[in-house]
């Protein structure tokens, strides 16, 4: 069934079709519609779930972890300040191996107060042990939630499904809602091997000495390393059933490209428009959109961009005192493999500043002029 819906509602429908059993959430702009619709679904029993209307995001994640540990499929959503407030518990969810799935609407961090998009909120959570999916359209949002449940529950690692504030969260697009029966077939109920129950008492997360802690973290990393192959496999399985493939990256006209843009989120869809225009003019450009940031798809990125002459990474984020965050990752992917490939790092669109097709023309201008990047950060559109 096709339906016109906003990105936030695509998250809600993802949670519904995934048959989330416990939802604990707190409102924050621009996430509110996600939980409004879910609370309606719970109230009218379209979704058989318990909705805990908590008093903070910190409690939202705490309740989600508790519910997940008890063996329930758990979904929540937040944004920016709310995600930052959850920080401690993001570690708790991954460290405790609770496969919570959460939507996060990318919103710039205060101060000054901003409700508009950039990626510093979610990228600040890089090292918390969550799988991170970045989406570029509402269909992808819905499809990713369903797949995230499957991947997370297989690996017992939580997932974050991320979309841009307003350019996606509040933008209406046509979304194909998959048939519930087929989704059930794709995503069987959550049945963890071990859970919190008096029938089989265990103590979870107790005092862990240096004799054991190290191994627990080693195992988390080892399972994280299984994610790339699993995401590809799950994506193919999903494609077989629903006709849409998701994977770690999306390649657009990269095959013969001299210049490749590397993007994420909705900036990646804008890039496609710019590329079509530039190709008409005879410039051989392509776009590589990174859909999974953690674990980082090193191999995919390496194989796709190695044939290009130059690469431009467009970051809607910054690690202060370093560079754009995707830029760092791409450089580290190529180091020791293709050291001579010129990689340029651009920062654009912080705090919701528009990123348009002309942004890409400007970026291309820089890349065409120079043989290699002389600066680590090239700012686009900033009033210096």
């Amino acid at each position, binding site marked *: 069934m096709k339906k016109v819906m906003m990105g936030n509602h695509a998250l809600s429908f993802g949670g519904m079709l995934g048959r989330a059993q416990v939802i604990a959430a707190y409102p924050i702009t621009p996430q509110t519609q996600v939980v409004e619709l879910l609370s309606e679904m719970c109230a009218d029993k379209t979704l058989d779930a318990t909705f805990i209307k908590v008093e903070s995001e910190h409690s939202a994640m705490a309740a989600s972890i508790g519910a997940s540990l008890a063996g329930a499929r758990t979904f929540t959503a937040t944004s920016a300040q709310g995600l930052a407030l959850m920080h401690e518990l993001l570690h708790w969810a991954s460290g405790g191996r609770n496969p919570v799935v959460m939507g996060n609407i990318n919103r710039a961090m205060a101060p000054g107060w901003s409700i508009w998009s950039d990626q510093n909120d979610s990228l600040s959570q890089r090292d918390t042990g969550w799988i991170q999916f970045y989406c570029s359209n509402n269909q992808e949002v819905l499809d990713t939630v369903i797949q995230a449940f499957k991947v997370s529950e297989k690996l017992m690692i939580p997932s974050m499904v991320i979309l841009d504030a307003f350019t996606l969260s509040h933008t209406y697009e046509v979304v194909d809602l998959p048939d519930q029966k087929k989704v059930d077939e794709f995503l069987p109920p959550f049945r963890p091997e071990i859970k919190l129950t008096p029938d089989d008492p*265990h103590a979870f997360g107790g005092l862990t000495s240096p004799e054991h802690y190290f191994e627990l973290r080693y195992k988390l990393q080892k399972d994280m390393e299984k994610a790339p192959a699993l995401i590809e496999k799950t994506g193919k399985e999903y494609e077989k059933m629903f006709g849409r493939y998701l994977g770690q990256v999306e390649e657009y006209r990269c095959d013969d490209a001299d210049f490749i843009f590397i993007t994420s989120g909705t900036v990646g869809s804008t890039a496609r428009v710019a590329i079509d225009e530039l190709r008409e003019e005879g410039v051989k450009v392509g776009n590589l959109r990174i859909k999974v940031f953690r674990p980082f798809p090193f191999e995919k990125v390496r194989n796709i961009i190695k044939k290009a002459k130059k690469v431009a990474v467009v970051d809607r984020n910054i690690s202060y005192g370093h560079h754009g965050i995707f830029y760092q990752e791409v450089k580290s992917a190529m180091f020791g493999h293709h050291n001579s490939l010129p990689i340029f790092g651009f920062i654009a669109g912080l705090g919701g500043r528009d990123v348009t097709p002309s942004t890409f023309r400007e970026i291309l201008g820089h890349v065409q002029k120079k043989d290699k990047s002389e600066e680590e950060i090239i700012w686009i559109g900033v009033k210096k």
Partner: protein
Amino acid sequence: MSQDKKKKKMRLSLPEEELMNPGHVGCQGCGATLAMRYTLKALGQKVVLCIPACCWSVIDGPFPYSSLDVPIFHCAFETAAVSASGVKAGLEMVGDTETTVVAWAGDGGTFDIGIQALSGVAERNDDILYICYDNEAYMNTGIQRSSATPYGAWTTTTPVKHFKNRPKKDIDAIMAAHRIPYIATASVGYPEDLFKKAKKAKDIKGTRFLHIYAPCPVGWKSRSEDTIKLSRMVVQNATFPLYEIEWGEKYTLNIKLKEKKPIEDYLRLQGRFRHLTEKEIAYMQEEVDRKWERLLATVEGCQ
């Protein structure tokens, strides 16, 4: 007939069955261990405990061991109440509607860092049993003051020269203001009363709050053999009266005092109060008297 009577075994006032085993790492004379032991006797095995950072997150024993026969979720410091709500919701969604989900926290995790989540849970009347074992300071981190520390007490962050100069936070009144179905105070010095209250709380639906006085010899600079004595004296001198509150309004006094004892003897058994002058003790006595009178009036008003 009289001989038959003699032959009869002593009748135990609490069930013999233990859900807490030897091997825990509590200190000598620890009130918190008694609180857990008695509570589990009342609640039985169909229990899940959510324990935030507190003495009990250590007492239970290190990974991969546990001294309890019930499952434990060691949760984040400020999340005991809402972790329990999450567990309860999760268990219900997977078909277990019977298990009592308990948040088991110290006074720091209840009065201070956990109060926001606790207030949220109580306002929603989530179906959990919240138990605070109160040893009146951050004992696990080495005796720092909490908002449960009483007036006059020494701690490592309220040194003698600057002892705690504010009263203990009235958490029971705060909880009563949430109009939850059941609140009770208890003391490890009155195990039958504690047992009865835990059992009663188990069978009530909604948020139940049990506040257990639990001496800490290490932090109070008291003798470990005085733990029971102190936890009886504190009731008898009305510093920690034992009462119940139903739906935030109906107060019942459980241990009535024919003769209310003065607080001085109680204070003198604890090194944490050693520095107090007579003037300060007199002030504290006045405060206890005033609060006691107010409680009696409230109880009377409910009858």
